[in-house]
């Protein structure tokens, strides 16, 4: 065998800066970032993209990608993205948001952006808690789930019910592609990447608002090791937040197996 038979199968995406991230070991923020960078590279969009960073664990996301970024106020990323996309409509614009940013303080902004059919893509990281601030209850925290602000477990009588964001936004006519995927194992991650690609393609085709909700782990605040966290996600989050495509504009040719 010669060296010419060697094939490069996988390498660090070109859209990643040469630096380590501040995310906890095993945190799937890293996976989500990687998938976004891979998709944009494969689409040839790396030099045509502007990202909008949230407030949350991913607040420094702009340090990790090799393209232009702006930092939004908490929850306001979809509005900021709207301002950018409406001014520079040929650019690819995306927001990257967590549970609090998108589903709590930012709920007004995300619903309105989706309803308006803004040509932006939102990557929504759902790990059922507020990570950056130490693990408080989030709109996505499951009934009975223990967090630092639901220390006896989420009591739906007093603390209300979680919100299924993908399902909710899929009711809006302005939404072109709303999907939920998971990042807890290799197969799910591969499917997540396809969904992210579909979302960015739909933006490029001007079909409407697109979002991929990514079920993610938070070992540090869940108090579990990485392996147990992935199991917890599979056992508890998947039944409540099913993976699937909740809104697919007929013009989208979503590849089979999504």
């Amino acid at each position, binding site marked *: *065998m010669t*060296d010419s*038979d*060697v*094939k*490069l*199968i*996988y*390498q*660090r*995406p070109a859209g*990643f800066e040469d630096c*380590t*991230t501040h*995310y*906890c*070991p*095993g*945190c*799937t*923020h*890293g*996976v989500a970032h*990687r998938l976004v*960078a891979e998709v944009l590279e494969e689409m040839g969009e790396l030099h045509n993209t502007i990202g909008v960073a949230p407030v949350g664990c991913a607040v420094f996301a702009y340090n990790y990608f090799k393209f232009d970024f702006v930092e939004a106020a908490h929850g306001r990323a979809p509005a900021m993205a709207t301002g950018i996309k409406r001014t520079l409509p040929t650019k690819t614009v995306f927001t990257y948001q967590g549970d609090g940013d998108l589903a709590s303080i930012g709920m007004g902004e995300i619903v309105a952006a989706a309803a308006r059919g803004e040509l932006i893509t939102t990557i929504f990281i759902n790990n059922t808690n507020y990570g950056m601030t130490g693990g408080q209850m989030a709109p996505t925290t499951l009934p009975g789930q223990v967090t630092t602000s639901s220390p006896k477990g989420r009591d739906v009588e007093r603390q209300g019910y979680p919100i299924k964001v993908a399902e909710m936004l899929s009711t809006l006519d302005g939404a072109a592609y709303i999907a939920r995927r998971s990042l807890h*194992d*290799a197969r799910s*991650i*591969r499917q997540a990447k396809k969904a992210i690609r579909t979302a960015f393609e739909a933006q490029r085709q001007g079909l409407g608002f697109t979002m991929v909700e990514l079920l993610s782990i938070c070992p540090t605040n869940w108090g579990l090791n*990485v*392996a147990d966290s*992935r199991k917890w996600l599979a056992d508890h989050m998947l039944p409540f937040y099913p993976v699937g495509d909740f809104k697919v504009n007929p013009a989208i040719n979503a590849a089979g197996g999504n």
Partner: protein
Amino acid sequence: MPARGWVEINEMYCKACETCVTDCPSQVLALDMSRLSPKGYHPAFMLHPEQCTGCGICAVVCPDAAITVYRGERPAKKEEKL
């Protein structure tokens, strides 16, 4: 049967989360408990390189994009340190 692939794990990025170790279908990888990376982690490495098929699952799951995956015959190892 020679290994069908191999991986390189960048110690500057590896955080020893063990996701690759757990997910490798051929049980190739482990944390190197004999040393620490400059970041203070026990970096992942190929404990059983002969079993690597170059499937790429480790790189797919790596949250830190620390892994490069090759298929084919690995070039002869050069001495890295004296």
